[in-house]
């Protein structure tokens, strides 16, 4: 069964949680005890409607403040597909959360309040989805009931959004506009009678029709070695297998490969998935590979096809999203985790910061604050094997770890 991961984001009260609650309700994914809890709570709060946002706002602090503060994961399924929604908030650590949610998603829903139109949040959310090269974006123009389901207003917002689209870096994004009312249920799951001028799909119809090939970015196969398996049992006496996940493409038995960093050549002898031997490992499968030759391989090494090597270098420039309250400055040292590989890194140069309204860049920036997005060059203590993020979503991304706090303080996309 297909699994589609969707990122949602929006500002505090544009109805994101309500939209998700509505999706759950109309797809009959809310169980009777959950629905009852929502009914009771809505009544207790004195609402004359069901507050579906109560289905998703999980933490006590959120219920008290009536806002969402972290990434929450929500699950529902139809007969065709399983859906995982990463619901991220639109304030305080907004960029950090949006980037996090988008990094694990294949599609995104950008929510716009029809009364307000395109605002800075919309701009930011779209920019981040574009930066992370999310292939499918749905622009849900919400609260249509509050603008009398006006086609004119819908078109106005659409043109405002098209201005943003004209500035985007990643042009291959599929963008779809849908007029909805999450509160009333218009065009979420069921087609609305209030928008006869809209002949397109409802939100769910559109999600259902998204094909895997519409959302997956394909590249060349990369196999970072996670773990070396040596059973040392009688049956598997000399067995030495390399466990990992295949990213970007397929690997097959007989493929000529190169092992990095040693650059040793070999051939794939067998591919195991549990107790089965398979001919081909598809992308995103967690397999075990054995090689023809006895090569010394350990965690963090990478197996790639011989005719398609990544860049091997001790420095790179990346667009990074800074997520920590401690500033990033030139000369600072961090641990960079690139896939399963860890290296020590030093900030060499901060080239420029993206202006918060995405109007341009600021070349005078000396430090990065939380939520900043900037172009930075790092120098490493040993080479890593990378691709540009635009060519390989997995092998072109990394996280930054502060070795004092051990926290993940940033994420980067190699240029």
């Amino acid at each position, binding site marked *: 069964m297909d699994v589609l991961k969707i990122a949602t984001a929006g500002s505090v009260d544009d109805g994101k949680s309500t939209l998700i609650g509505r999706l759950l309700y109309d797809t009959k994914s809310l169980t009777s005890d959950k629905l009852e809890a929502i009914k009771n709570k809505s009544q207790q709060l004195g609402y004359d409607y069901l507050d579906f946002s109560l289905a998703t706002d999980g*933490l006590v602090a959120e219920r008290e403040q009536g806002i969402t503060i972290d990434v929450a994961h929500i*699950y529902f399924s139809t007969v065709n597909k399983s859906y995982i929604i990463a619901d991220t908030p639109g304030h305080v650590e907004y960029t950090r959360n949006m980037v996090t949610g988008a*990094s694990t998603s294949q599609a995104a829903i950008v929510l716009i309040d029809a009364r307000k139109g395109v605002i800075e949040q919309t701009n930011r959310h779209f920019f981040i989805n574009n930066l992370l090269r999310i292939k499918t974006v749905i622009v849900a123009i919400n609260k249509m009931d509050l603008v009398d389901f006006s086609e004119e207003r819908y078109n106005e917002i659409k043109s405002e959004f098209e201005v943003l689209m004209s500035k985007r870096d990643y042009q291959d994004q599929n963008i779809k506009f849908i007029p909805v009312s999450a509160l009333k249920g218009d065009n979420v799951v069921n087609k609305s009678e209030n928008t006869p001028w809209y002949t397109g799909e409802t939100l769910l119809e559109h999600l259902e029709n998204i094909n895997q090939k519409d959302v997956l970015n394909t590249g060349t196969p990369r196999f970072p070695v*996670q773990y070396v398996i*040596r*059973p040392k049992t009688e049956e598997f006496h000399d067995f030495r297998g390399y466990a990992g996940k295949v990213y970007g493409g397929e690997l097959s038995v007989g493929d000529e490969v190169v092992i990095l960093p040693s650059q040793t050549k070999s051939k794939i002898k067998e591919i195991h998935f549990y107790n089965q031997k398979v001919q081909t*490992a598809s992308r995103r499968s*967690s397999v075990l590979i054995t090689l023809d030759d006895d090569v010394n391989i350990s965690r963090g090494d990478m197996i790639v096809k011989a005719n398609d090597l990544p860049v091997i270098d001790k420095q790179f420039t990346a667009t990074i999203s800074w997520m920590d309250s401690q500033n990033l400055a030139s000369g600072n040292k961090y641990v960079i*985790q690139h896939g399963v590989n860890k290296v020590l890194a030093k900030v060499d140069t901060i080239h420029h910061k993206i202006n918060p309204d995405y109007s341009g860049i600021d070349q005078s920036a000396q430090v990065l604050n939380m939520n900043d997005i900037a172009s930075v060059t790092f120098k490493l203590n040993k080479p890593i094997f990378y691709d540009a993020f635009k060519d390989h979503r997995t092998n072109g991304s990394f996280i930054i770890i502060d070795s004092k706090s051990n926290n993940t303080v940033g994420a980067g996309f190699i240029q």
Partner: protein
Amino acid sequence: MINKIMKNTSQINPLENEAIYIFREVAAQFEKPVLLFSGGKDSITLVRLAQKAFYPAKIPFPLMHIDTGHNFPETIAFRDRLVKELGLELIVRNVQDSIDQGKVKEESGRYASRNQLQTTTLLDAIEEFKFDACIGGARRDEEKARAKERIFSVRDDFGQWDEKNQRPELFDMLNGQIELGQNVRVFPISNWTELDVWSYIEKEKIEIPSIYFAHTRATFLRDGLIWSADDDVVYRDEDEEVIERIVRFRTVGDMSCTAAVLSEASDISSVVQEIRDSSISERGARIDDKRSEAAMEKRKQQGYF
């Protein structure tokens, strides 16, 4: 040689492959991991996934059961058989010992349960064995507070969860760096739903304890839920009438806080069908969550699994 070709992405199970990846990260990033095993379907599923992650080698860490002493006997028998068949190491630590040592106090009254008391026994065992990673079968779809849980969730010296200060998890990169004394709770099936687990058990033909299937049991009704009456663990008022019903359990926790559901589903395919059709969430039959809306979040902050 079986020439099964996993050619199309749609033919692989993304959730299974993700879980295998997480297991391998645990083995690579931590010194002393342990798999928390309750005998329930989620932890049994974890064992199968761990087998797949390390085959042909054995699972490179032990299983640990925090035994409340109030488990269904079927679960304990099942546990011991599984461990023996797979040649795994099993550690058992008992809540009764924590009670005897005066570390926790047994609850009394009609809602008495040892469920909360497990936390102390678990934290003591983590300290005793110096475990730095505890793998568990919690899923984000179970409960609202779990929906925000990370796959690698850092706990401090006191086993506490700081939900406001969680590490962001990007792509599938898992940051397992911790300080001495801290440990990480790992949830490989975070992204699975109840139906995903059941479908997997069916597809993989995984054996599970018999109480998951319809059977006749002496039961009584309380607060609209069906409780097991054929043992001394569950407190029962004299006016609560015992009736034999055909029931099964959807979750297998402590007997004192796990209610049964009326069901005729006597094999795995009818259970899967029942879950598909059902309209009550799994934790709806867990009285420990009903204590208050924020019950789970509070227990998690205190170090509950």
